[in-house]
Protein backbone atom coordinates (compact mmCIF):
# COMPACT_ATOMS: atom_id res chain seq x y z
CA UNK A 1 0.00 0.00 0.00
CA UNK A 2 2.85 2.37 0.89
CA UNK A 3 4.59 1.68 -2.38
CA UNK A 4 1.44 2.16 -4.42
CA UNK A 5 0.63 5.48 -2.73
CA UNK A 6 4.22 6.62 -3.13
CA UNK A 7 4.24 5.75 -6.83
CA UNK A 8 0.92 7.51 -7.46
CA UNK A 9 1.81 10.74 -5.69
CA UNK A 10 5.45 10.78 -6.78
CA UNK A 11 4.40 10.48 -10.41
CA UNK A 12 1.79 13.22 -9.93
CA UNK A 13 4.46 15.44 -8.39
CA UNK A 14 6.98 14.72 -11.16
CA UNK A 15 4.47 15.26 -13.98
CA UNK A 16 3.09 18.45 -12.45
CA UNK A 17 6.66 19.67 -11.88
CA UNK A 18 7.44 19.04 -15.53
CA UNK A 19 4.25 20.88 -16.46
CA UNK A 20 5.34 23.89 -14.37
CA UNK A 21 8.50 24.14 -16.43
CA UNK A 22 7.37 23.39 -19.98
CA UNK A 23 4.12 25.36 -20.25
CA UNK A 24 4.14 28.94 -21.45
CA UNK A 25 1.03 30.18 -19.65
CA UNK A 26 1.88 31.27 -16.07
CA UNK A 27 -1.58 30.32 -14.81
CA UNK A 28 -1.08 26.72 -16.00
CA UNK A 29 2.28 26.65 -14.23
CA UNK A 30 0.68 27.97 -11.05
CA UNK A 31 -2.08 25.34 -11.05
CA UNK A 32 0.47 22.59 -11.74
CA UNK A 33 2.56 23.88 -8.84
CA UNK A 34 -0.50 23.47 -6.60
CA UNK A 35 -0.62 19.85 -7.81
CA UNK A 36 3.02 19.37 -6.86
CA UNK A 37 2.44 20.83 -3.41
CA UNK A 38 -0.66 18.73 -2.77
CA UNK A 39 1.07 15.49 -3.72
CA UNK A 40 4.11 16.47 -1.65
CA UNK A 41 1.76 16.91 1.31
CA UNK A 42 0.62 13.30 0.78
CA UNK A 43 4.25 12.16 0.71
CA UNK A 44 4.88 14.03 3.98
CA UNK A 45 1.96 12.12 5.48
CA UNK A 46 3.51 8.85 4.28
CA UNK A 47 6.75 9.89 5.98
CA UNK A 48 4.88 10.48 9.22
CA UNK A 49 5.10 14.28 9.25
CA UNK A 50 1.44 15.14 9.79
CA UNK A 51 2.04 18.66 11.04
CA UNK A 52 4.26 19.59 8.11
CA UNK A 53 1.73 18.08 5.70
CA UNK A 54 -1.03 20.25 7.16
CA UNK A 55 1.16 23.35 7.06
CA UNK A 56 2.13 22.53 3.48
CA UNK A 57 -1.50 22.52 2.41
CA UNK A 58 -2.49 25.59 4.43
CA UNK A 59 0.55 27.84 3.91
CA UNK A 60 1.91 26.73 0.54
CA UNK A 61 -1.00 25.41 -1.48
CA UNK A 62 -3.32 27.84 0.26
CA UNK A 63 -1.76 31.18 1.07
CA UNK A 64 1.32 31.40 -1.15
CA UNK A 65 -0.32 30.04 -4.29
CA UNK A 66 -3.37 32.26 -3.85
CA UNK A 67 -0.92 35.17 -3.84
CA UNK A 68 0.66 33.89 -7.05
CA UNK A 69 -2.64 33.33 -8.83
CA UNK A 70 -3.86 36.75 -7.72
CA UNK A 71 -0.76 38.48 -9.09
CA UNK A 72 -1.02 36.56 -12.38
CA UNK A 73 -4.62 37.67 -12.77
CA UNK A 74 -3.83 41.22 -11.65
CA UNK A 75 -1.06 41.59 -14.23
CA UNK A 76 -3.12 39.74 -16.85
CA UNK A 77 0.11 37.92 -17.69
CA UNK A 78 -0.24 36.12 -20.99
CA UNK A 79 1.91 33.42 -22.51
CA UNK A 80 5.61 33.81 -23.01
CA UNK A 81 6.78 34.83 -26.46
CA UNK A 82 8.40 31.88 -28.25
CA UNK A 83 12.04 32.11 -29.20
CA UNK A 84 14.64 34.41 -27.75
CA UNK A 85 16.45 31.74 -25.77
CA UNK A 86 20.16 32.32 -25.99
CA UNK A 87 22.25 29.85 -27.98
CA UNK A 88 24.22 28.81 -24.90
CA UNK A 89 21.07 28.12 -22.89
CA UNK A 90 19.45 26.07 -25.65
CA UNK A 91 22.54 23.94 -26.37
CA UNK A 92 24.21 23.62 -22.98
CA UNK A 93 21.17 23.98 -20.73
CA UNK A 94 19.65 20.52 -20.80
CA UNK A 95 22.98 18.59 -20.66
CA UNK A 96 24.16 20.68 -17.71
CA UNK A 97 20.86 20.14 -15.88
CA UNK A 98 21.08 16.41 -16.56
CA UNK A 99 24.59 16.54 -15.10
CA UNK A 100 23.18 18.31 -12.02
CA UNK A 101 20.57 15.59 -11.59
CA UNK A 102 23.12 12.81 -12.04
CA UNK A 103 25.45 14.46 -9.51
CA UNK A 104 22.59 14.71 -6.98
CA UNK A 105 21.63 11.07 -7.63
CA UNK A 106 25.26 10.02 -7.17
CA UNK A 107 25.48 11.84 -3.85
CA UNK A 108 22.22 10.22 -2.70
CA UNK A 109 23.31 6.70 -3.62
CA UNK A 110 26.82 7.21 -2.22
CA UNK A 111 25.51 8.69 1.01
CA UNK A 112 22.73 6.16 1.53
CA UNK A 113 24.01 2.91 0.02
CA UNK A 114 21.67 0.69 2.02
CA UNK A 115 18.76 2.81 3.27
CA UNK A 116 15.99 1.20 5.26
CA UNK A 117 12.60 1.12 3.59
CA UNK A 118 10.07 3.74 4.58
CA UNK A 119 7.10 2.21 6.36
CA UNK A 120 4.05 4.24 7.17
CA UNK A 121 3.52 4.61 10.90
CA UNK A 122 7.05 3.87 12.07
CA UNK A 123 7.95 7.48 12.77
CA UNK A 124 5.44 8.81 15.27
CA UNK A 125 7.11 12.04 16.37
CA UNK A 126 5.81 14.10 13.45
CA UNK A 127 2.57 15.31 15.00
CA UNK A 128 1.77 18.85 16.02
CA UNK A 129 2.58 18.17 19.70
CA UNK A 130 6.15 16.93 19.16
CA UNK A 131 6.98 19.43 16.42
CA UNK A 132 5.52 22.27 18.45
CA UNK A 133 7.45 21.20 21.53
CA UNK A 134 10.74 21.31 19.62
CA UNK A 135 9.73 24.62 18.05
CA UNK A 136 9.03 26.31 21.39
CA UNK A 137 11.92 24.88 23.39
CA UNK A 138 15.09 24.22 21.41
CA UNK A 139 14.24 26.48 18.47
CA UNK A 140 12.55 29.27 20.41
CA UNK A 141 15.09 31.94 19.41
CA UNK A 142 14.81 31.02 15.73
CA UNK A 143 11.03 31.07 16.02
CA UNK A 144 11.02 34.56 17.53
CA UNK A 145 13.47 35.81 14.91
CA UNK A 146 11.12 34.42 12.26
CA UNK A 147 8.37 36.67 13.59
CA UNK A 148 10.67 39.66 13.05
CA UNK A 149 11.37 38.41 9.51
CA UNK A 150 7.67 38.12 8.73
CA UNK A 151 7.05 41.60 10.13
CA UNK A 152 9.81 43.04 7.93
CA UNK A 153 8.39 41.18 4.92
CA UNK A 154 4.92 42.63 5.51
CA UNK A 155 6.36 46.12 5.90
CA UNK A 156 8.44 45.67 2.74
CA UNK A 157 5.48 44.47 0.70
CA UNK A 158 3.37 47.40 1.93
CA UNK A 159 6.13 49.91 1.11
CA UNK A 160 6.58 48.50 -2.39
CA UNK A 161 2.86 48.55 -3.08
CA UNK A 162 2.44 52.01 -1.50
CA UNK A 163 4.80 53.61 -3.99
CA UNK A 164 2.60 52.16 -6.71
CA UNK A 165 -0.54 53.76 -5.37
CA UNK A 166 0.98 57.24 -5.32
CA UNK A 167 2.21 57.14 -8.91
Amino acid at each position, binding site marked *: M*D*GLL*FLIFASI*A*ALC*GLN*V*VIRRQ*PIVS*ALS*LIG*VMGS*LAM*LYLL*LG*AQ*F*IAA*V*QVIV*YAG*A*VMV*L*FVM*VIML*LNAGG*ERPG*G*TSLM*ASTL*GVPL*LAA*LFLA*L*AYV*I*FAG*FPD*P*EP*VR*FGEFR*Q*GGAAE*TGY*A*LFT*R*YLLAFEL*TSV*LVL*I*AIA*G*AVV*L*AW*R*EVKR
Partner: protein
Amino acid sequence: MTAAGVPLSWYLILAALLFTLGAAGFLLRRNIITMFMCVELMLNAVNLTFVALAYHLRQVDGLVLAFFVMVVAAAEAAVGLAIILTVFRNRASVEIDEVQALRD
Protein backbone atom coordinates in the same frame (compact mmCIF):
# COMPACT_ATOMS: atom_id res chain seq x y z
CA MET B 1 7.08 -4.50 -2.83
CA THR B 2 4.06 -2.89 -1.26
CA ALA B 3 4.37 -4.69 2.05
CA ALA B 4 8.07 -3.94 2.42
CA GLY B 5 7.72 -0.19 1.96
CA VAL B 6 9.62 2.12 -0.36
CA PRO B 7 13.37 2.70 -0.10
CA LEU B 8 14.26 6.06 1.37
CA SER B 9 16.41 6.84 -1.65
CA TRP B 10 13.31 6.99 -3.88
CA TYR B 11 12.08 9.96 -1.89
CA LEU B 12 15.49 11.62 -2.19
CA ILE B 13 15.63 10.91 -5.93
CA LEU B 14 12.19 12.47 -6.35
CA ALA B 15 13.43 15.52 -4.45
CA ALA B 16 16.50 15.70 -6.70
CA LEU B 17 14.27 15.44 -9.78
CA LEU B 18 11.99 18.23 -8.58
CA PHE B 19 15.00 20.40 -7.71
CA THR B 20 16.45 19.87 -11.18
CA LEU B 21 13.10 20.74 -12.78
CA GLY B 22 12.97 23.92 -10.71
CA ALA B 23 16.50 24.86 -11.71
CA ALA B 24 15.64 24.15 -15.37
CA GLY B 25 12.62 26.39 -15.21
CA PHE B 26 14.52 29.14 -13.45
CA LEU B 27 17.25 29.11 -16.10
CA LEU B 28 15.15 28.53 -19.22
CA ARG B 29 11.90 30.42 -18.63
CA ARG B 30 11.78 34.14 -19.21
CA ASN B 31 8.53 35.07 -17.49
CA ILE B 32 9.40 36.52 -14.07
CA ILE B 33 6.35 34.95 -12.40
CA THR B 34 7.16 31.49 -13.77
CA MET B 35 10.78 31.86 -12.67
CA PHE B 36 9.58 32.77 -9.20
CA MET B 37 7.32 29.71 -9.13
CA CYS B 38 10.33 27.58 -10.07
CA VAL B 39 12.15 28.94 -7.00
CA GLU B 40 9.20 27.75 -4.92
CA LEU B 41 9.46 24.35 -6.63
CA MET B 42 13.13 24.10 -5.61
CA LEU B 43 12.27 25.06 -2.02
CA ASN B 44 9.62 22.34 -1.98
CA ALA B 45 12.12 19.77 -3.24
CA VAL B 46 14.53 20.67 -0.44
CA ASN B 47 11.67 20.42 2.06
CA LEU B 48 10.98 16.87 0.88
CA THR B 49 14.64 16.05 1.56
CA PHE B 50 14.39 17.51 5.06
CA VAL B 51 11.27 15.50 5.87
CA ALA B 52 12.67 12.27 4.40
CA LEU B 53 15.88 12.62 6.41
CA ALA B 54 13.89 13.47 9.54
CA TYR B 55 12.22 10.09 9.04
CA HIS B 56 15.59 8.43 8.44
CA LEU B 57 17.17 9.88 11.60
CA ARG B 58 13.93 9.59 13.64
CA GLN B 59 14.41 13.17 14.77
CA VAL B 60 11.98 16.04 14.76
CA ASP B 61 14.64 18.66 13.91
CA GLY B 62 14.25 18.14 10.16
CA LEU B 63 10.54 18.87 10.44
CA VAL B 64 11.24 22.10 12.33
CA LEU B 65 13.72 23.11 9.64
CA ALA B 66 11.11 22.37 6.94
CA PHE B 67 8.68 24.55 8.87
CA PHE B 68 11.17 27.44 8.89
CA VAL B 69 11.76 27.00 5.16
CA MET B 70 8.01 27.36 4.62
CA VAL B 71 7.84 30.53 6.72
CA VAL B 72 10.77 32.08 4.88
CA ALA B 73 9.22 31.07 1.55
CA ALA B 74 5.95 32.75 2.48
CA ALA B 75 7.76 35.98 3.45
CA GLU B 76 9.83 35.80 0.28
CA ALA B 77 6.72 35.29 -1.85
CA ALA B 78 5.07 38.39 -0.38
CA VAL B 79 8.07 40.65 -1.03
CA GLY B 80 8.93 39.05 -4.37
CA LEU B 81 5.43 39.43 -5.77
CA ALA B 82 5.36 43.06 -4.64
CA ILE B 83 8.63 43.59 -6.53
CA ILE B 84 7.16 41.88 -9.62
CA LEU B 85 4.15 44.19 -9.36
CA THR B 86 6.44 47.22 -9.23
CA VAL B 87 8.47 46.01 -12.21
CA PHE B 88 5.29 45.46 -14.20
CA ARG B 89 3.94 48.93 -13.40
CA ASN B 90 7.24 50.56 -14.42
CA ARG B 91 7.88 48.58 -17.58
CA ALA B 92 4.51 47.08 -18.56
CA SER B 93 6.16 43.70 -19.04
CA VAL B 94 6.92 40.56 -17.04
CA GLU B 95 9.66 39.34 -19.40
CA ILE B 96 13.02 39.05 -17.66
CA ASP B 97 14.82 40.25 -20.81
CA GLU B 98 13.20 43.66 -20.42
CA VAL B 99 14.63 44.07 -16.94
CA GLN B 100 18.30 44.77 -17.43
CA ALA B 101 18.85 47.78 -15.20
CA LEU B 102 17.75 48.23 -11.60
CA ARG B 103 16.79 51.87 -12.16
CA ASP B 104 13.93 53.10 -14.36
